[in-house]
């Protein structure tokens, strides 16, 4: 086990998961001294009946929901947040519940900044102060969730707001809110969440606390992904949603890795989704790390990816490699439903080069010059990374 000479770890979010967990919300809000939440969500969640499920769950609580603001769109803008803030104030709300994916949670976090600081100007927050005393904030993940809901981050109009305190107080993961999705729509967020958890525990700075969370996240995703895609039993869908929610906590506690930086840049340059780019790059980044760094890909990765029996049966020196192989297996196994190479996405070579260039400087020291491009090239062809450091 790796324990660095110094590390910090923090997870503000309490997880409440499973049967009838929504019904706890009124009690939980009251125990944080709040009685009137604003629900912030998007049209899809309303159309799928998710808001109604929450309202029904409020039955017998004797409490009032200040309003359901359903104006969040895929791209969260300051205007939306401001509208929600005005509604929040007009109704005398004291807490926030977001239902939906990251855009809803981003809006909720920014809304919390505005109403807790009694301001209408998001831009005043250059860097967020400590000790903000924000309003109680509950996230209800849905099948649209990416894991960023439970993270320290909010992105509004492309601008990033980041603080430990932006993490929700509670993530309520209720199977009733996890509606069935298309296969690709189920796979991609899960693989991206897994990519981030894998990246976090394959960094030199990994620590045992974040590793524990990462392992739980990875194992939940690996064990439940196939079942959730094929048939979608309640257990597998709930397991997957748990894995994704935990990945946000892991991601918040790890430095940015080369894999997620590449996925981000590639998404911006090609118009493909971040999820897709992250999914395609995941095994190749790992492969590169394995072959070019001494300790970052530890044998322990095999444990959450393949389970305790396969891990223990493997020879110690082989585990790192087997872990990477197992990740390849999982991603390639999804090729029926999603592209797994950059070639399939028709990305021209010059974009690979400019993407590599954009992240190169931040990671050259860690992974060697030319590393970023090697990852992209092997992901392009779907081949293994060849050779070591250039």
């Amino acid at each position, binding site marked *: *086990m790796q324990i660095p000479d110094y590390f910090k770890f923090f997870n503000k979010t309490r997880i409440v998961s499973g049967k009838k*967990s929504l019904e706890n919300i009124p009690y939980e809000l009251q*125990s944080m001294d709040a009685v009137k939440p604003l629900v912030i969500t998007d049209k899809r969640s309303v159309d799928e009946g998710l808001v109604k499920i929450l309202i029904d769950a409020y039955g017998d609580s004797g409490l009032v929901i200040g309003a359901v603001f359903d104006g969040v769109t895929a791209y969260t803008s300051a205007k939306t947040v401001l509208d929600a803030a005005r509604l929040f104030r007009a109704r005398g709300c004291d807490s926030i519940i977001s239902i939906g994916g990251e855009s809803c949670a981003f809006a909720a976090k920014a809304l919390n900044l505005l109403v807790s600081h009694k301001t209408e100007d998001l831009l005043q927050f250059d860097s967020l102060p400590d000790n903000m005393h924000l309003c109680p904030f509950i996230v209800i993940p849905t099948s649209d969730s990416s894991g960023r809901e439970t993270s320290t981050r909010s992105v509004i109009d492309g601008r990033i707001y980041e603080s430990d305190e932006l993490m929700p107080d509670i993530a309520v993961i209720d199977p009733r809110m996890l509606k069935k999705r298309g296969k690709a729509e189920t796979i991609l967020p899960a693989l991206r969440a897994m990519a981030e958890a894998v990246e976090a525990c394959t960094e030199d700075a990994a620590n045992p606390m974040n590793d*524990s969370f990462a392992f739980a996240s990875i194992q939940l995703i690996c064990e439940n992904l196939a079942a959730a895609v094929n048939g979608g039993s309640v257990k597998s869908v709930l*397991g997957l949603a*748990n894995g994704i929610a935990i990945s946000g906590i892991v991601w918040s506690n790890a430095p940015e890795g080369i894999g997620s930086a590449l996925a981000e840049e590639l998404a911006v340059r090609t118009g493909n989704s971040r999820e897709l780019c992250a999914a395609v790059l995941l095994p190749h980044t790992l492969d590169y790390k394995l072959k070019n760094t001494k300790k970052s890909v530890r044998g322990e990765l095999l444990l959450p990816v393949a389970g305790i029996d396969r891990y*223990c049966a*493997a020879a110690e020196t082989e585990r790192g490699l087997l872990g990477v192989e197992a990740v390849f297996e999982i991603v390639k196994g999804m090729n029926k439903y999603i592209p797994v190479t950059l070639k399939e996405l028709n990305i021209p070579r010059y974009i690979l080069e400019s993407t590599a260039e954009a992240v190169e400087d931040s990671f050259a020291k860690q992974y060697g010059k030319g590393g970023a491009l090697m990852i992209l090239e092997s992901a392009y062809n779907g081949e293994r990374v060849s050779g070591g450091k250039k």
Partner: protein
Amino acid sequence: MQIPGYYEFCNKVKTVSGHNALDKLPEMLASVNSVKPMIITDRGVNGAGLIEPVKKALGAKVKAGGIYDDVPADSDVKTVKDIAAKYRAAKCDSIIAVGGGSVLDTAKGVNILVSENSDNLMNFVGFGALKRRLKPLIAVPTTSGTGSEMTLVAVIADHERDVKMLFPSLFLLPDFAVLDSRMTKTLPAALTAFTAMDAMTHACEAYTCLSKNPLSDSTAVMAIKLISENIMQGVKKPGDMQARLALANASALAGMSFSNSMVGMIHAIGHSIGAICHVPHGVCMSVLLPYGLEYNLHKTGHLTGELLFPLKGAEAYNSAKAEERPLLTIKAIREMNSDLRKATGGKHPTCLKEIVDRDGNMMVPREVLSDIALLSLNDGAMVYNPEDLDYKDALMVLEKAWEGEPLDRKKIKKGKKTSLVKVKD
């Protein structure tokens, strides 16, 4: 990984770990807008010179509003009130608790009074009584075992009314837990051994009791692995700072785990031995751990079997058949206790009759076992144990643990068997 039909998990404590983690104290205080912390500790800790690194870390930048070092071994209402008065008089604005379980319990109690501006702890007993954030609390553990830096409950005795009051609230979770290897460096071998076994018990019970969940599982496995890999080193080479840091991390991880998944019969019986015979908690845990796992085998044998991996490593796990693993896990823990007994020159007990006080007197005479059995049925931890225990069951366990013999598993009255592997009686 088992995903339960329902679970909750919370660990909102900022953990700062490292060989010089305390040096970050000024930053931590600044981040919660505190300029005048009060230090709460006990004589033992202060006498061991452990407040020095705290003072040094605060340096010239922060002036502590006082050091209270008179916390008794069993935190009580009077002390809490006393400290609260001093806190108010010195106009402090945060608390740094340096010590073990009772120091932290006391600090949590003080925090309730000063934050709620009250003089009566009684008003805040039970669930849901606290509704607001309290004053900043920084926990600096000086043993690696209780995990109280990660737990949300405070236990405070009211000697006048002869009751123990329970304060369970998420608001009692400390804001920071500082795991600094220097703070446990001087811990004597025997103390290192049994406090680590307390943490080990937290993790093992968390992994096998009713509220287990994915996060309590992964933190428990990590804790057990760290303890198994470092306990002997910590006991034999007290100055091994890497081992100290590992044990401190393990204890915090185990604390996170059991604070969410709760503990079972081992703690129920152990609390009762502690209450009646005044045996240190970790000592009871060391002895009882194998018995608790043994008693529950027909319910959670497969889970106990999985623990063979963090305890003895992958090879040991792989070379055993699934149905052999549960008993091997229990054997490994018994061996660990024997090894610790050797390494501590006989100070670490492997059975109840071996527990002696400073003068060598037996602390748990056989005659009190029935009282202990009766008391343990009324301990809250029994709720979370996989199998029921009545008086006779508890007494049977205690008698075997007293002698140091394994349980006669044929005599256990078994409910529905839920273990996925068959373990022979």
